[in-house]
C-alpha cells in the first residue's frame, strides 16, 4: 500500500512538472500561423514593395510575423497591432491606406473614373443609336417617291428635317 502511495505521488509530481513545462512553453507557441497571417495579410512589406506580409519570405517579413505572434501572445488586439505597425513603419505598410490626406485619392479617383467611363459609354451608345436611326430614316426616305429628299440635295434634306422638327414641336 505504501509503495502504491509513493507511485501515485511520483505520478502526481511528474504531471505537475509536465503542466509547468507546458505553461512555460505557452505564449507565442499558442498562436497559430493562421492567426498571425490574418493580420499579416492586411500589411505590406516596406522593404520588398507590393508583397503582402503573409506571403513574403524575406528575413525582415519573417521577423515581422514573429512580432505579430509576440504581440498576440501579449494580448494585443488586431487594431492595436495595426496601430503599432503604422507608428513604427508608417501608413504605407497598410494594404488599405487610411482615408485621409493624400490617400483619399485612392478612394476617390477610381470611382470617379469608373463613373465618368460609364457616362461616356452611355453617351457614345446613345449617339450611335441616333446615327443608326437617322440612317434608317434616310434609307426609308430614299425609297419613298414622295419624299422631299429624293433630289439628294443636302440642303433639301436639312429643310425636310427642320420641318419635321417643327411639326414635332407643334
Amino acid at each position, binding site marked *: 500500500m505504501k509503495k502504491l502511495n509513493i507511485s501515485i505521488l511520483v505520478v502526481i509530481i511528474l504531471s505537475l512538472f509536465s503542466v509547468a513545462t507546458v505553461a512555460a512553453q505557452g505564449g507565442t507557441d499558442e498562436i497559430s500561423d493562421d492567426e498571425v497571417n490574418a493580420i499579416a495579410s492586411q500589411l505590406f512589406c*516596406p522593404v520588398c514593395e507590393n508583397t503582402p506580409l503573409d506571403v513574403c519570405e524575406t528575413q*525582415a517579413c519573417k521577423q515581422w510575423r514573429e*512580432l505579430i505572434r509576440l504581440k498576440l501572445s501579449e494580448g494585443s488586439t488586431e487594431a492595436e497591432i495595426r496601430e503599432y505597425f*503604422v*507608428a*513604427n513603419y*508608417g501608413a*504605407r505598410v497598410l494594404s488599405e491606406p487610411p482615408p485621409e490626406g493624400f490617400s483619399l485619392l485612392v478612394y476617390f479617383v477610381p470611382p470617379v473614373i469608373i463613373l*465618368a467611363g460609364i457616362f461616356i459609354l452611355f*453617351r457614345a451608345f446613345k449617339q450611335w443609336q441616333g446615327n443608326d436611326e437617322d440612317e434608317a430614316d434616310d434609307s426609308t426616305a430614299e425609297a419613298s417617291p414622295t419624299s422631299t429628299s429624293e433630289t439628294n440635295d443636302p440642303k433639301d434634306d436639312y429643310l425636310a428635317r427642320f420641318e419635321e422638327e417643327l411639326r414635332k414641336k407643334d
Partner: protein
Amino acid sequence: MTENTPENTAPNRGMPLWVQITVWTVLVALLVVVFMGLQRAKEGNVQAGAETGEFDFTMPLFEGYEYEGAQEISLTQLRGKVVVLNFWASWCVTCKDEAIELEEAWRLYQPEGEVVFIGVDYVDTEPEARDYLETYDITYPNGPDMGTQISQAFRIQGVPETYFLDRDGVVQHVQLGPFRSTEQILNIVNSLLAE
C-alpha cells in the same frame, strides 16, 4: 444675317462643357501626381552638398542608450559636431559586415566629443534589433526610425547607408553599402574634422 446651314445648326451631341472640363482637370491632376512620384523616385538618395536643415529629426533612443542624458537625439542639437548617420537593420546581412568597424571608429572619437555616431534602425523589429546591438556591443546612440520618417527624408535606397554631415549639418559624403575597413571611416571623418 447668318444663313442656316447644316454645319452651324446641327444639334451638338458631344459631352457638355462642364463634363469635358472636369475630365481634363482630373486627367491633368493625375498626370501631375504620377510625374511628381517619378521625379521623386528618380532623385535617388540625398547627395553630398545637401543641407539637412530642412529635414531635421528627433529620434527616440532604444532603452539603455542616451545622448547627453536624454533618451532622444535631434539633428539640430548636433550642429558644430561632425555627424555619422548610419542606417541599418538586424535583417540586413551586409550591415553585420561593418558593425564592428563602426563601433571601433566611434570609440576612437568618443572621448573628444567632436564626432557623434548615430544608428538609425530601419523597418526593424525591436527584439532582433536589441540582439544585434548586444551581439556587436554597439555603444553609440541607436534608435528606431519611427514611421520611416528619417529614411524618407534622406531618401535611402537600402541598408546599410551612411551619411557624413559636417559641422554645419551639410552632407559631405555618402557611403552606400558597407565599409571595407575602420580606416575608411576614419579617413572620411578626419577630412571633415580638418575643415
